[in-house]
């Protein structure tokens, strides 16, 4: 199974994600610079966190116009699993692959803290190993992390089961406490919290097992046995 980690100018969680995929889950992982194209035989694509283009204009908006996004759009249509974390989520939203928008946190501050996620959809390639409503202790680190959709879109999201993660409590003022969503097909998932920061017990002060299931779900989906 081949996983691609896309690197934009200003990505800064790319190395963390790469470490987790290779050293923790033994997956064949490659970096792809945003100006390159993605190979046809890739099995999953991850857009890591960071500050692409220094968050200028709006987080993720410039990166959404990178050449590689066209390839990602094609792969999304083909049903290949794609995960955007933090800035990666913002880029997926800005490129129209996911609905909604990410606004400044209600506190107007950058927030770095451990929170709890609730799994609301366990049918995606990144959540299929979770029980519905399972709790995930995980850190967030963002300034523009408040997910917002209008009421009509929210209804649609609920109807099509596109809400993947909710915060267990109000964290940043996001619509319906949403922390992560997917496309209607379910193969493109975006989330604000950082699973790559939570899968190793050494740096996870609470419990690293739930976060690991995000990656293990992908492996099950792709038929990889570890």
């Amino acid at each position, binding site marked *: 199974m081949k996983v691609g980690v896309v690197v934009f*100018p200003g990505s*800064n969680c790319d190395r963390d994600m790469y470490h987790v995929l290779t050293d923790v889950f033994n997956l064949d992982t490659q970096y792809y610079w945003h100006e390159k194209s993605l190979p046809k035989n890739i099995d999953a694509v991850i857009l890591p966190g960071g500050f692409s283009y*220094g968050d200028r204009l709006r987080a993720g908006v410039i990166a959404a116009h990178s050449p590689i996004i066209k390839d990602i759009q094609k792969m999304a249509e083909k049903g290949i699993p794609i995960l955007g974390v933090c800035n990666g989520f913002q880029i997926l939203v800005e490129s129209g692959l996911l609905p909604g928008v990410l606004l400044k946190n209600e506190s107007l501050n950058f927030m770095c803290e451990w929170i709890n996620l609730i799994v609301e959809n366990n049918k995606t390639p990144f959540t299929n190993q979770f029980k519905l409503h399972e709790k995930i202790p995980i850190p967030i680190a963002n300034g523009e992390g408040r997910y917002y959709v209008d009421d009509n879109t929210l209804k649609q999201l609920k109807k099509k089961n596109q809400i993947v993660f909710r915060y267990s409590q109000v964290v940043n003022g996001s619509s319906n406490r949403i922390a992560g969503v997917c496309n209607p097909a379910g193969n493109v998932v975006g989330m604000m919290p950082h699973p790559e*920061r939570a899968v190793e017990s050494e740096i996870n002060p609470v419990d690293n097992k739930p976060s690991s299931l995000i990656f293990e779900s992908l492996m099950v989906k792709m038929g990889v046995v570890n």
Partner: protein
Amino acid sequence: MSLEPQELIELKSKIGRDPTSTELQIIAAEWSEHCSYKSSKKHLKMLPMKGPLVIQEKGYDSGVLDVGGGYVITAHIESHNHPSAVEPYGGAATGVGGVIRDILSTGTRPIAILNGLRFGNIEKDQQARWLFKNAVTGIADYGNCLGIPTIGGEVEFDDCYQNYALVDVAAVGFGKKENLIKNHAKKGDLVVLLGGSTGRDGMGGSQFASDSLESEDRSAVQIPDPFIEKLIIEAILEARNHKLINAMKDLGGGGLSCAVSEIVDTLEVGIEMDVDMVHTRESNMHPDEIMISESQERMLIITSKTKLKKLQEICKKFRITCSVIGHIKSDNQMHVKKGKKTFANLPTDVVVNVTLLDLPSKKPVYLKTIEKEKKLKSISDYSKIMMSFLGAPNIASKIWVYGQYDHEVGIRTVIKPGHDASVLRLDNGKFLSIKIDGNPKQCYINPREGAIGCFEEACRNVVCTGAKPIGMLDHLQFGNPKDPEIFWTFLESLKGLTDFANYFKIPCIGGKVSLYNETPLGSIKPTPLIGVLGLIDKKPLIPQKITEGDCLVIVGDTKDEMGGSEYFEYVHKFVGGKCPSVNFVESKKNMKTVLKVIQSQLLKSVHDCSKGGLAVAISELCMMNQIGCKISLENVPGEKLDIDRILFSESHSRYLLILDKKNLKKLEIILKKNKVSFKLIGKFMGDKIQFTKGIKSIIDLRVDMAQKTWINSLKDLVLHG
């Protein structure tokens, strides 16, 4: 420009002619206090700088320690006080940027940032709140964007910083020893300027920083751009992997003038450079301006002709500009041209070697009476006092600050901010523990003992994580050194630090001196800031959750040393008394014993006892673990003291050991064997913080109420005043 008349005469006699205007600018920058350390350099030599782990290389701006397995740690500390006092957001942000480039210039990847922030009284002063809030945002925006975790630091408020700010930033790098840049250059090598464009921001910044802050010279403050810095980091590390860098230096204070002259002088070569080749932000910049601009996010690289193409390719990939601005010569001259016309041509040794000063010093008059205590109001309700104390800006939780810093990125942060020292995991299986500490209140009362106290406190903090101190960073911040009384306090602090470093064999691996820290009201209190790095070979002591029935043992004596304590200054508004002093023998014994006990794995956690004394340290444990405690003050070891002294004395060398009751006997055996002073003083239970003396209740507080005040008060102060 701040060249002294005497210095001008000296310059003329050294070069045998009148200097050109560009030469004057270059010299004024390089001979400024900020760049030349002319007042302090003679004395700084007293600090021990060598040690078995220390790697010294030519031209490094940061210290290097060998941590085994082919890996090194680099570390440095800088401040950006003057700029932050004028423009806190940009000043603090560019302070982060500068120290990060110092780490980068050794060829190591920056992996952590710590910062020490000091402001005026935020309870009374709106200006202090504004400075504080914006400095924090500046650091957050810069560090977060770089993806370098800000893993720790400290924040302090004191009247002496009114209308002023101390913004100190320490950074740590990590890399393979074989990847360290071994600075070298030979005739014909190319000098490349890489990164952001040179503009009219930060003009004369180093001279601005070498004078008292009287005017708000905003043009001397640099403009931050973390995105370019991030690209520079990645481009340089890629160039390093391809071995394209012969020598490298960050552009900081003094801009091109200092970077160019210092690197060619260190490498014993010369340079011919053309200012027309420098990529500028605006047209028509004069050579003088180009030479002294302190625009940020720039690095100077010396490379070979054959390597240039590859270097340019890497820069193109990251879309950062790199300009060949000159070449290396063998004549030891710094030759600055614009096109064909010469604007400066100076021997490099003249540029970099200012005449060092030996300033007079005199014991300050105020010290004669400062240790005398006045009669204080007696306290009738300690619970009430304690509650307001937990909300005092210097005691309250700093979560509002570190919650805005990404302290997880890089996935190394094992012990996160909010504990004693922060701990990072390294690729060689070891762990690095880091802490910075300052204490101007105590340093004001006794500059020597205060400075030693900062050093010991930082050591204590890394010891609490199970680390052995291996290196120290010092940042010496004082007022105008030409005032003999101020210079005396500088020397006393330095001597104290030297004595402690020698006794404990902890080398100073890097440092900085910042003088002329003066506010309209006068000099700041002496503010040496000490960073200590500790190494853990096997496993750090990660604080475990304290549960019902766990025991609390204190190691170290509590003494009548209340001078400079938060209790005297915040509760009684009294500045004076005898400040805590460190007994070296006792300190070493306690440190070694605590490390031994941690290794024997008997403990759940260890907590340092410092600001706010025993009462605050124990309350912190309760609030962080949401559990109550019952503490018997009569059991606290040390001389017989009044209740307020036992509760709030800030005596050094004390550690709070928390353990499961079943390990108590084993612990007592080890502590007895090592002959340290210790006592079981209580246990954790229930939901109230309770201190008693005999049968008398002294403090009785609900943990949840205390926690609410402690967690929220700083945020409330910043947001609502």
